[in-house]
């Protein structure tokens, strides 16, 4: 895919992932600075850009967190280079402070904020509609509806940012980020801009705004409002509104307003029902500031407007307010009227039911034979709960920590989890943490719990990348306010859950360049933590001993469980001629006690009910050998990695 993003020719027709399309858009439109922190569903934007950064002359980085990433982009744009920061919706919560400054500040080049929202929270802890962040920050929000537009809107957003002189949000959703679609490529225009910086703070406000000298805050705010007034006109010129008036005789005088991914369900519906071109349709490529003129002009011809949107009823609320002035008799149907589900990602069936209901057409129904199959299937299917991978070092760390709490604290403890693969330690069979909060929340919330007056030890479990991202201030706080928190840092030496991106501890940047490692143990000591231990979670005895010691220690403590992510390990192994020799259950020794499957739960292990013996799937096992120590009967023979030199 590398060559396509950098080298694909104009008008070439290719299949791209939505996030790859955004990356291609950035390459085509001369973005020179791109920064991000990994987060699903946004990660592949910078994953892709990192592959071509040197080739196209772009600075691409994984930053310590989203706030820093956005500030890096601000720095680029102040210096006259088109810049972008991309992040998942929750990640954007970290940038609210710099964003609220950015809207009053001038820039010498386009500044793009890519927000990847995750309706249904497929890979997230919440549903959050960042059009409301655009509303609060008072910046334009562009909403592409497919992969082609995801690419094209990057250029349009940057041009708008320069014309209006404001940061612009590109609001994506999972179903665009993680969909592949056919895309016609555009021309790649790369021309490095000579960096420039202003002489003083106030002169910066001169940048294109025609304003000179110091301004008080309300004056700056008023300038922002003046800028916003022009957005709709600029958007219209850029073709961000698709308007289809429909036939005069159209069914019940109904029009549809939609945006983003759900527009596709509307298009598919209208095509299937033979209604395309007959019914009124308005697709908004800009939703903030709300394009009142375009919407008023469209809505006035109809008695009813159906709003099909994902996330919050953003368009619908604005339309409802607008209708009071421009057409009080207008009937509006959407989420507020409970015609469309208020939560969760939309799909074709939901839109079919919604539109058919208002249009008085028959909705699609489940075919009778399928209803029977669904009934029969439901009796056979079991859910596949999420679990850590075979050989995952986190599983070993939790198992060891659990053992330590049994010897030191009668298995009584309070443990807060954090955001990463290791969150899965909450699930059976380990069930190590009882609760989880936001990025960095493990240590932060544990600071509070530790002051609540429990006798049991209070633990926080946090991953390596999350530690750098958000754990450090809370760790300093534990020293500052002497909160007796035992922090387990699950350091698998990579940002695993989002696709193995490097972090400050890896010694390698996004583009694979060597850099100085920032070590968690050094940070912990510098934060004032007096008890800091590093263990290999595959070494069960040492891991248990370190945790026992930490639990007995009087004061905040950090135990770093360091071992490369098993999947990243396998990825690296595939580039070599080395091969894994899996662990094996020695049948004569196995008593069928089930400790391995019931308490440890490695997905490479199973239990044969008929033979009453455990077994290990040789294709799944990665030979870590932790189960050898877990088995109380000594019935597992250790695996290994065999082979020669790197290829």
């Amino acid at each position, binding site marked *: 895919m590398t060559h396509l993003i950098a080298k694909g020719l104009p008008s070439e027709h290719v299949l791209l992932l939505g996030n790859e399309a955004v990356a291609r858009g950035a390459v085509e439109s001369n973005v020179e600075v791109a920064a991000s922190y990994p987060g699903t569903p946004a990660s592949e934007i910078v994953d892709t850009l990192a592959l071509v950064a040197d080739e196209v002359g772009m600075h691409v980085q994984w930053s310590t967190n989203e706030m820093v990433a956005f500030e890096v982009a601000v720095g680029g744009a102040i210096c006259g280079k088109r810049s972008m920061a991309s992040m998942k919706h929750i990640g954007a919560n970290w940038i609210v402070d710099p964003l609220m400054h950015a809207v009053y500040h001038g820039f010498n080049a386009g500044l793009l904020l890519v927000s990847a929202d995750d309706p249904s929270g497929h890979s997230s802890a919440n549903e959050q509609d960042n059009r409301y962040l655009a509303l609060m920050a008072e910046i334009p929000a562009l909403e592409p509806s497919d992969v082609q537009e995801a690419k094209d809107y990057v250029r349009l957003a940057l041009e708008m940012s320069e014309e209006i002189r404001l940061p612009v949000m590109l609001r994506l959703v999972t179903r665009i980020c993680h969909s592949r679609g056919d895309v016609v490529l555009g021309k790649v225009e790369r021309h490095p801009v000579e960096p420039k910086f202003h002489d003083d703070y106030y002169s910066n406000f001169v940048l294109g705004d025609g304003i000179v000298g110091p301004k008080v805050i309300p004056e700056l705010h008023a300038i922002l409002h003046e800028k916003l007034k022009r957005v709709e006109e600029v958007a219209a010129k850029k073709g961000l509104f698709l308007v289809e008036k429909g036939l005069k005789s159209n069914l019940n005088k109904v029009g549809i307003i939609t945006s983003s991914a759900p527009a596709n369900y509307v298009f598919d519906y209208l095509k299937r029902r033979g209604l395309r071109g007959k019914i009124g349709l308005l697709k908004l490529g800009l939703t903030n500031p709300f394009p009142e003129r375009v919407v008023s002009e469209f809505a006035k011809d109809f008695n009813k407007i159906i709003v099909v949107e994902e996330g919050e009823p953003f368009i619908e609320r604005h339309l409802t307010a607008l209708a009071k002035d421009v057409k009080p008799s207008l009937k509006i149907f959407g989420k507020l009227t409970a015609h469309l589900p208020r939560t969760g990602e939309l799909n074709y069936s939901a839109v079919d039911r919604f539109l058919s209901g208002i249009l008085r057409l028959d909705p699609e129904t*489940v075919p009778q034979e399928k209803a029977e199959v669904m009934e029969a299937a439901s009796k056979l*299917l079991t859910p596949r709960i999420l679990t850590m991978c075979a050989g995952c070092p986190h599983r070993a760390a939790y198992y060891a920590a659990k053992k330590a709490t049994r010897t030191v604290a009668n298995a009584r403890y309070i443990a807060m989890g954090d955001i990463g693969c290791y969150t899965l330690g909450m699930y059976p069979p380990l069930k190590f943490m009882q609760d989880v909060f936001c990025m960095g929340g493990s240590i932060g919330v544990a600071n509070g719990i530790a002051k609540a007056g429990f006798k049991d030890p209070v633990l926080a479990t946090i991953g390596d990348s999350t530690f750098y991202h958000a754990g450090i201030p809370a760790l300093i706080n534990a020293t500052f306010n002497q909160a007796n928190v035992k922090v387990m840092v699950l350091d698998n030496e990579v940002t695993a859950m989002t696709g193995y991106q490097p972090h400050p501890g890896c010694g390698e940047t996004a583009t694979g360049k060597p850099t100085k490692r920032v070590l968690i143990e050094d940070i912990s000591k510098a934060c004032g933590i007096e008890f800091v231990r590093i263990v290999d979670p595959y070494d069960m005895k040492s891991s248990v001993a370190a945790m026992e010691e930490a639990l007995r220690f009087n004061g905040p403590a950090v135990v770093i469980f360091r071992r490369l992510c098993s999947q990243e390990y396998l990825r690296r192994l595939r580039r070599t001629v080395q091969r894994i020799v899996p662990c094996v259950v020695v049948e004569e020794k196995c008593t069928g006690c089930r400790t391995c499957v*019931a308490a440890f739960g490695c997905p490479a292990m199973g239990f044969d009910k008929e033979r009453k013996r455990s077994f290990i799937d040789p294709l799944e096992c990665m030979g870590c050998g932790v189960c050898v120590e877990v088995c109380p009967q000594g019935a597992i023979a250790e695996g290994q990695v065999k082979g020669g030199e790197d290829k």
Partner: protein
Amino acid sequence: MTATRDSELNIIIAGVGGQGNVRGAQILGTAAVKAGYRARVSDVYGIAQRGGPVVSHVRIGKEIYGSMVEEHRADVVVGLEPMEALRATSSFLRPGGIVILSTRPIYPVEVNTGKASYPKLEDILAVIGKASRKIVTLDATKVAEDAGIPIAANIVVLGVLAGLGLLPFSELVLKEAIKESIPRALEENLKAFDAGFSIGRRLKGCDRKGD
């Protein structure tokens, strides 16, 4: 278009994280674009890298928009794992559609820990049979192993799809797409594809009676 209605082809590839259905779907979509069609591919999965159910949606046609196959509208369900094949058939297969099912199970943790039991293959096939016109079963992992690359079950089933004549473009386009998308062990992957293709070709046209 082959095996379709509404001049669109809707395929679901279902499996468990790590089985490569996302890559398989990407290859199908790439081939479709090469052959001059519009393509939409979407993957629905949870937060983990491995072990969770993954459903890849592939839509191919001249005028298609949404990137997910609608419920009960898939022309073909490809299951890289029996229970996931059943799950996807239940939600997505259109009555009279075709199912390609790889027979090697991957047990959920709940089954490994003895809290749930894994359904018998014959029970799975019996239920799928109520909805489908044709079921092709094979151990795609075994076929891939024989080709020298056990992880290429996803490529094997692409071969089966092409061999059954279910795609509106030639297997050569698909092989081109494989060459572009597979970074390593290309020869073994193409061998796995050919093995799947032969299996599909052999079964082409052997529909169940009465359909």
